[in-house]
Each structure stands twice: as C-alpha cells, then as structure tokens.
C-alpha cells in the first residue's frame, strides 16, 4: 500500500492540527479520537509490515535529499512500540484541556514516527527537532502541579536547550554529510553504505554523536533527564522515556554503524567508558532517590548505557539484543511511568518516604506496578532479561568480557532499587494520612495492559524483534567487519562457534 508510511507520519500530525481547530468543549471526543488514531496506526503498521517505501525527490542542490519514508528492520518494531505507547498514553490521559493535550500527543506521535521512519537524513534531522516542540509545550502547559508551574517551566527550558543544542549539531552534521557524500537519502540503503573517511568524517560523526548522546542521554549529558521525567505529565513521560530517548540509540545503529564505522571504532573506548559510567552511576543514584519517578529516570540512564555499549561493540548478537532491549525498555518504562502516574494522581505525592502500604486496597495497581518493576529489573522471562542476555552475550563474544562482567553489577543493584520502589509504594503498614482512592479502573488497566502484554510476550519469545534486528545488524556491521581493531586470539574459534550455532538450527 503506497503512501501508507507517509500517512503514518503525517496523519497524526494533521489530525492533531484538526483537533486544534475544533471548537472548545470537544474534550472527551478529542481524546477518544486520538486513541482511535493511535489504534489505527498500530493496526496499519502491524498489518502491513512489507509496505514499500514512499519517496519523493526534494532537494537536488547542494545535495540530494528526498521525502523518503519507509519501514526498516530496526525501526519497524520501535515504531510499533511508539504507537502502542502513544495508544496507552492517550487512553490513560486525564487532564484539563484534553483537546489540546490530545492534539499535542498526536503531533508528538507523528513527529517521532517521522524520526524513526525517515530514510533521509535531512528529514530525520527535521523531525528530530520537531519532536521536541510538543514535549516542550506539554511540559509547560500540563507540567505537574506538584512541581509548580515554575519548576515545570525550568525543566521545560532545560529540556529544550539541551536537546536543541543536540539538534543543532545534528542539523549541521547532516548538512555536512550531504555535502561530503552528495546525498542524504541514505538511511537503510545498503548501496549507500560508505564509510565517510576523510577529515570531515570525524567532525560529522562528532555532530551526530553529540546529538545522540544528549538525547539518550548518557553521563554526563543526562542532567536534563531527571528533571524532565519528573515534571512531565505521566502519559507524556511514558512516551518520551519509552521511545523518544531511543532516537539517539536508533541513530547510532542506522547512521553510525554503516557510515561512521571507523570513527565509531575510534570512539569506542570513550563511549564504552561513558556507557559504563552511566550504567553504574544511574544504578547507584536510583538507589538513593526518594522521588519515585526519579528512581525510574535514573534506572533509564543505567539501562540505556548498556544499550549504548552494545551498539559500540559491533557485535551482531549484541546489536540484536540492543534492539530487543530498546523495545523492552520502551514497554516497561512506559508502563512504569504510567503506573507511577496513577499512584501520584491518587496520593498526590510521589515521595517514597511518604508513600507506603498501598498494596492493601489496590491489588490491581500493585500488580501493574510489580510487573513493570520486575521487567525493569531484568527478571528472567520478561523482555528486559531477553535484551540483557543477548547484549551481554554479544559483548562477551566481541571481546568486551570485562565490560560484560561490570554490567552484571547494575543488574543486582536494579533488583535493589526496583524493589525499593515497589515496596516503598505498595508494602509496609498503611500510611494514615494518604487519601484512600479506588483501585485501578478498567480504563487505566486498558492503558497499561498492552504494554505489560508486550513485555511478557517479548520476554517469552523475542525472536520477531531479535531475528529482524540480527539480520539488519549483520548487514550494518558486516561489510566493515574488523580485522585488526580488536586483538582476539580465539576469534576464529568463536566465530566458528557462532556459525556452527546456525548450522544447529
């Protein structure tokens, strides 16, 4: 079905604008219209996995560019995740000015779909910046009353400034890439995979890398994140933390690996070091936070650090694991933030010191939270574990044995902080001064259900995601398989083991 992919990108944005144009008072209708759009998007994406790309020539000078959208092996499941998470977020939506809120969410959906489905770097960069706008507006307009408008405002500005700084670098790098390479219509196109190797390569890569690292974020560019995640309304933070933060990692995979392999290899020690620091730093910091959302925010820092390392290992299995983990993390962090949002909505606080004993009257709420927390701490059998396992295996295989060993530490710490989070809210004696509210309603449950279902299914069998990503990773890293970069005495042996593994099947 030609045009479908473009429709997935532009459709939500258009509907968003239409909603804005509607008269006031159409709030509830607008919300369910938004839900319908998201559901339709999920259905269309899942129903047409083999849709051809849409491409219209755009620029000829100074470099070639095209309005080129299409599903990619890496992006397909991330987009599904995005649409599902947006669906959940919209279902869970409960706020004033619902019409505008829904409109912003739809614009966000469209813009982020654009980022992941763009096959042209210039489009990628444009949608990259576009996706910041609705988040900023949502934070300013619907920032949490707990933080007060001022804090939400500061957090919003901080978000915007950090990410725009990254976006600017991205745009410059894209322009430079176009001039050096001649065309920006290159994402996912194996024929266009060349290594940008001249003197500009390093600078162009630095531009991309900065944008991606800030977006992810990685230590030390992460300080915008806890504030943003803390102040954003929960449905938005579910989408932002679940998917928007993956844009950088996605960029490293589809742009970094094929075009900047050389530079990435050169940067590997640095980035891996940053990844390890993020990994440990995020984990330990999460251990000491008293704000429930910040616990999750810092845990994201920790998890995304691991994904980053995986990408820089250039290992097929690790990258497949990274994609699985990207999707898994999107699912469980969205679920966590949504449930924490419910908790906060009910109890009007998210301080672990004040919360407690909610498990009594709210078994469904507790169930939802425990599932999300367990997925986040990498319980074997849930999606997070599948990703971690594949990543660590790949890391070890790629010669990053010590890194894999270090990466085990945060898993233990994750168990500690996630249980601390869960138990701090749900367990312990009842707290007298907390308001008693009703348990999870079915609409709230409907919002969380697809996410929970998603990470259970993905945990049982990540093959659909992992297989696609593994093939893509082979294509992305294959042509530039290193010969001399990593000294690996047992390389040939292990390689044969990998190959042998195929023959077993």
């Amino acid at each position: 079905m030609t045009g479908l992919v473009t429709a997935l990108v532009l459709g939500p944005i258009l509907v968003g604008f239409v909603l804005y144009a509607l008269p006031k008072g159409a709030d509830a209708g607008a919300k369910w219209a938004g839900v319908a759009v998201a559901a339709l998007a999920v259905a269309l994406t899942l129903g047409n996995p083999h849709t051809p790309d849409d491409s219209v020539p755009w620029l000829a000078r100074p470099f070639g560019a095209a309005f080129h959208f299409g599903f990619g092996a890496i992006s397909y499941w991330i987009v599904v995740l995005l649409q599902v998470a947006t669906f959940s977020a919209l279902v869970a939506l409960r706020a004033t000015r619902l019409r505008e809120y829904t409109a912003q969410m739809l614009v966000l959906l469209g813009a982020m779909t654009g980022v992941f489905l763009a096959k042209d770097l210039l489009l990628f960069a444009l949608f990259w910046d576009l996706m910041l706008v609705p988040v900023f507006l949502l934070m300013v307009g619907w920032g949490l009353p707990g933080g007060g408008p001022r804090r939400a405002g500061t957090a919003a500005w901080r978000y915007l400034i950090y990410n725009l700084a990254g976006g600017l670098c991205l745009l410059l790098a894209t322009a430079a890439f176009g001039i050096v390479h001649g065309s920006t219509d290159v994402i996912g196109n194996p024929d266009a995979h060349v290594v940008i190797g001249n003197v500009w390569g390093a600078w162009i890569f630095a531009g991309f890398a900065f944008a991606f690292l800030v977006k992810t974020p990685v230590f030390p560019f992460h300080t915008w994140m806890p504030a943003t995640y803390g102040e954003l309304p929960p449905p938005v933070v579910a989408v932002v933390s679940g998917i928007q933060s993956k844009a950088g990692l996605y960029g490293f995979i589809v742009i970094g690996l094929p075009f900047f392999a050389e530079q990435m290899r050169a940067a590997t020690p640095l980035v891996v070091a940053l990844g390890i620091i993020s990994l440990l730093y995020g984990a330990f910091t999460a251990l000491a936070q008293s704000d429930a959302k910040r616990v999750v925010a810092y845990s994201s820092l920790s998890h995304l650090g691991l994904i980053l390392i995986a990408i820089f290992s250039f290992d097929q299995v690790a990258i497949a694991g990274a994609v699985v983990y990207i999707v898994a993390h999107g699912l469980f962090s969205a679920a966590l933030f949504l449930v924490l949002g419910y908790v906060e909505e009910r109890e009007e606080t998210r301080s672990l010191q004040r919360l407690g004993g909610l498990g009594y009257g709210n078994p469904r709420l507790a169930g939802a939270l425990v599932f999300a927390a367990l997925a986040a701490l990498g319980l074997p059998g849930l999606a997070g574990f599948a990703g971690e396992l594949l990543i660590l295996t790949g890391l070890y295989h790629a010669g990053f044995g010590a890194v894999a060993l270090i990466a085990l530490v945060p898993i233990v710490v994750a168990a500690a902080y996630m249980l601390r989070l869960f138990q701090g809210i749900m367990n312990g004696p009842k707290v007298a001064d907390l308001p008693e509210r009703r348990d999870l309603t079915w609409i709230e449950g409907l919002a969380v259900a697809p996410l929970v279902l998603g990470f259970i299914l993905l945990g049982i069998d990540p093959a659909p995601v992992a297989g696609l990503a593994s093939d893509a990773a082979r294509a992305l890293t294959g042509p530039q398989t290193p010969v001399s970069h990593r000294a690996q005495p047992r390389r040939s042996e292990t390689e044969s083991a990998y190959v042998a593994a195929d023959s077993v099947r």
Partner: protein
Amino acid sequence: MIAFWVLALALIASGVFTITASKPVYSVVGLLGNFVVLAILYLTLQAEFLAVIQIVVYSGAILVLFLFVIALLSSGVKPFDEGTNRLPRVLIPALVLGGIALVTIVFSAVRSPSPAQPSITAGSPGALGQTGEAGVFGSVANFGQTLFTTNLLPFEVTALLLMVAVIGVVLLAGDDVPSRLQVRERGTEREPIVKSGEPLTR
C-alpha cells in the same frame, strides 16, 4: 637646522597651549599659532601648495567655524561649565600608553636607516628642486598635475564626502528639535536579563 628646532619648539608649545587652555577661545588661538607654524614647516619640506592650503582652509575656514560655535554656545546659560570629572585619573594611562607609543616611534624612526634618495634627473617634471622653483617636486603645478591625473577619483570622492557632510550638518543642526534628549543617569542599573546569582537551570 636651527630654524627647524625653533619651529618645532613653537609647534609643541602652541600644541600644549591648545590642549591646556582653560577656555576654548584660547585653544583656538593656540591652534591658530600651531597651524601657522606648521605651514612654515611644510614650506621647509617643499610643500608650498599645502602650506597655503593649511593657512586658507584650516586657519581660515575650520578655525573660524570653531569660533562661530564658541560664540554661539557662549550665549547659552552655562556654556562651558564643566561637570564632574568622571575619569579623574585618565591622564596617567593616557600618558603611559602615549609615552610608550611615542618613545617606540621615535626610537624606531631613529634606528631605521634613512631612505636613499631616489635618483631623479634634475629638471625633469617632479624632480627634486628648491622650494618656490616652478615645475619641480612640491610645486603647485606638480601638485595639480598629480591631483587631477593620477588621483582624480579620490579627489572626486572627496567632493562627494564634503557634500554629504554639508547635508549632514544641515540635518543635524536643523530646527525641528524634539524634546530634550533623555539622557540616562549614569549608575542606574538596567534590569539584567540573567541575574548572576540565579541558576540558569533548576
């Protein structure tokens, strides 16, 4: 040689008088003397046309203009009442910096070798001759020829510049003066965009 030193001393003395005079009128007088001495120096340098121009344009036109303005402003309420000196110790850095530059220039002028005289055939147009001698370097004819041939374009541009200046003066000193200029009091702080103590971000 002696003439030079006398002239130089006169020049410096008149210059010092110009910048130290208590009233502008005295300065004008000092400046007049300065210009006259300078004109004589020009003569010693074989620039007779410029010497004349110096007297005519500078002393005759510019200084008279100064006098006009002084006269005009003297009719005001408190014409030359000098307010508080906001840079009381400015003389020290000025002298230090100026002194450094001056000493450096003089030293480098002394140390650098004098340019060798270009060999120009005597009698040919533009050849070095005596002051007042016709047709030689520095004569009016020679000057005019150079001005209107080689340097015609700059000359024309100068004309344009002068015209612009005239228009500018007419505009500036025109009649329609609006309300008194809002002179901002020194020391009033503008509201800073970002206060230094405030964190940029929270």
